């Protein structure tokens, strides 16, 4: 079994008197696709925010390759190789594909080979953006196309390409297929597989059990702020998984009556 890329030890998060996350231990191993599931209010969003650097934990420690780390901001997490692709994708709709992929870390060069002034290397960014998308097997012709003109699946690809640009090792995807149709969902699941094939570690937060079973290698289920289940995905089907999410019990699915359960946990 591969070593943990990121280890969570006794992570807790309180908002005043409300304990959203309670003493969670979780290993995210290099090269795996770990699905994080749970009902609304189970604590998975709070946990993801802590891993992404969007908020500090109240208790516990994070260890990145064995060394204790504290992320003060999403940018700080990014510097440590952890990128988050948010549900709303955090793209600038009217900026181009290339501008979005390089947003915040643009390439520059001096005009006519001079060192100054540093101007945007638009051609270089377009070429590199095209390469990132080709790596994801999604060739788009015009890198100057504004993101607002892309389909939902293509936008996910741009957001993922940006994570590749940041050379992130752990990519957190928050409900990547929530607003997508069937075809686009298949595209995004394909993107996750390609990311994983590139050796990237993926933390997939999803309510869609079919998606989880399709791409994840392991699943962790949160219930009432605690980690209730942590096991390989092998041997699970979407209905069983949905029942486990609802009950928070690993063996619950074994007693699932025929015809019960749901592909999507509410």
């Amino acid at each position, binding site marked *: 079994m591969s070593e943990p890329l990121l280890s969570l030890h006794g992570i807790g998060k309180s908002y005043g008197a409300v304990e959203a996350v309670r003493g969670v231990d979780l290993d995210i191993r290099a090269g795996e696709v770990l699905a994080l599931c749970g009902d609304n209010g189970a604590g998975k969003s709070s946990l993801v925010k802590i891993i992404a650097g969007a908020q500090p934990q109240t208790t516990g420690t994070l260890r990145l390759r064995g060394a204790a780390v504290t992320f003060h901001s999403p940018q700080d997490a990014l510097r440590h190789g952890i990128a988050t692709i948010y549900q709303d994708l*955090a793209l*600038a709709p009217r900026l181009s594909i290339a501008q979005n992929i390089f947003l915040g*870390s643009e390439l520059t060069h001096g005009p006519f080979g001079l060192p100054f002034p540093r101007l*945007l290397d638009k051609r270089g960014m377009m070429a590199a953006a095209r390469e990132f998308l080709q790596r994801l097997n999604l060739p788009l012709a015009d890198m100057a196309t504004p993101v*607002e003109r892309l389909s939902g699946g293509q936008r996910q690809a741009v957001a993922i390409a*940006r994570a590749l640009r940041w050379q992130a090792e752990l990519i957190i995807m928050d409900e990547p297929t929530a607003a997508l149709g069937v075809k686009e969902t298949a595209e995004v699941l394909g993107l996750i597989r390609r990311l994983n094939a590139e050796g990237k570690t993926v933390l997939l937060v999803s309510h869609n059990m079919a998606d989880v079973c399709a791409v994840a290698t392991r699943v962790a289920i949160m219930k009432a702020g605690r980690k209730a289940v942590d096991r390989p995905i092998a041997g699970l089907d979407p209905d069983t998984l949905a029942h486990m999410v609802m009950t928070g019990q690993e063996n619950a699915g074994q007693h699932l009556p025929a015809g019960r359960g749901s592909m999507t946990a509410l």
Partner: protein
Amino acid sequence: MLLRLLPRFGTVFAGLLLLLFFAAFAENFASLGNLAVILKETSFLAIIAIGFALALTTAELDLSVADVASLAAVTTGALIQGGSAPAVAVLAGLGVGLGAGLLNGFAVTVLKVPSLIATLGTAAIAKGLGFMLTQGVAFVGRWPRDFTGLARGSLLGVSNLIWWMAGIAFLAWLLLKWTRTGLHMVATGEADEAARLAGIRTGRMKRLGLALAGLMAGILAVLMAASLSSAAPGMAGDHFLYAIAAVLLGMTMIEPGRPNIPGTLVAAFMLKTLGNGLVLLGAPYYAQDIALGVIIIGSVALSSTVMRRAAFTKKLNFRMGG
């Protein structure tokens, strides 16, 4: 082909038609002397409008530009009148503009006052200070040529005012289109949260946009004072609505829906052409104000219509592989 160009250049074509109309019906409109007058007037408007556009690029309004320009002008005028060196007076004028811009940026990003309110407050303060400094009386005199030459001189037969406008417009265009900082300003205005998550310091970009708007007000002030050899409280007041109109009209062309420098320049020229043409046609003085109001409302309506239509057409083309 024409349909594809229409969203970007429709307003430019309308401007050309306006020119042809006045050339045909307004006596003396098409003379070189009159065109030079229009261009000089355009330069004042374009400079302050570029400032407004830079602030608006970061999604912040600067409604104080005209009153800050008036305050900066009387500051410069007071120093020149008092015998200070022109360089000192110019720096003071620019400093007042920049200072007001920085104050706006502080109020908006640190005190979290919406720019609409913050800059209205700054405008009122600047207006009051202008009257306090002058006691309501204009500074007029024989001012040194070193100072007046900034606006009245010419280079290669072209008025310095036009060179100033061209230089400032080029630098602003370069900033927005070719530098990281400019792109970060655009991203801040287009998608604040996305920009912040990408590590862009959006507050800093907003402060920069507002500071540059203030600086442009300072530059306008110095050039106006130099051009007129006088400085009076409220002297830039007429530029307020015109600057807003120029930026909004500019947003209907070149890069529809986004404040852009080439569009702002063309719009400033169109507005001054309209004013000049109406005067030559003998239209009543209030016709310009009415036209200005129509342009402001029409620009915003047109801008959103053009954007919706362009987005729809392009989406269709893109989906069809066009």
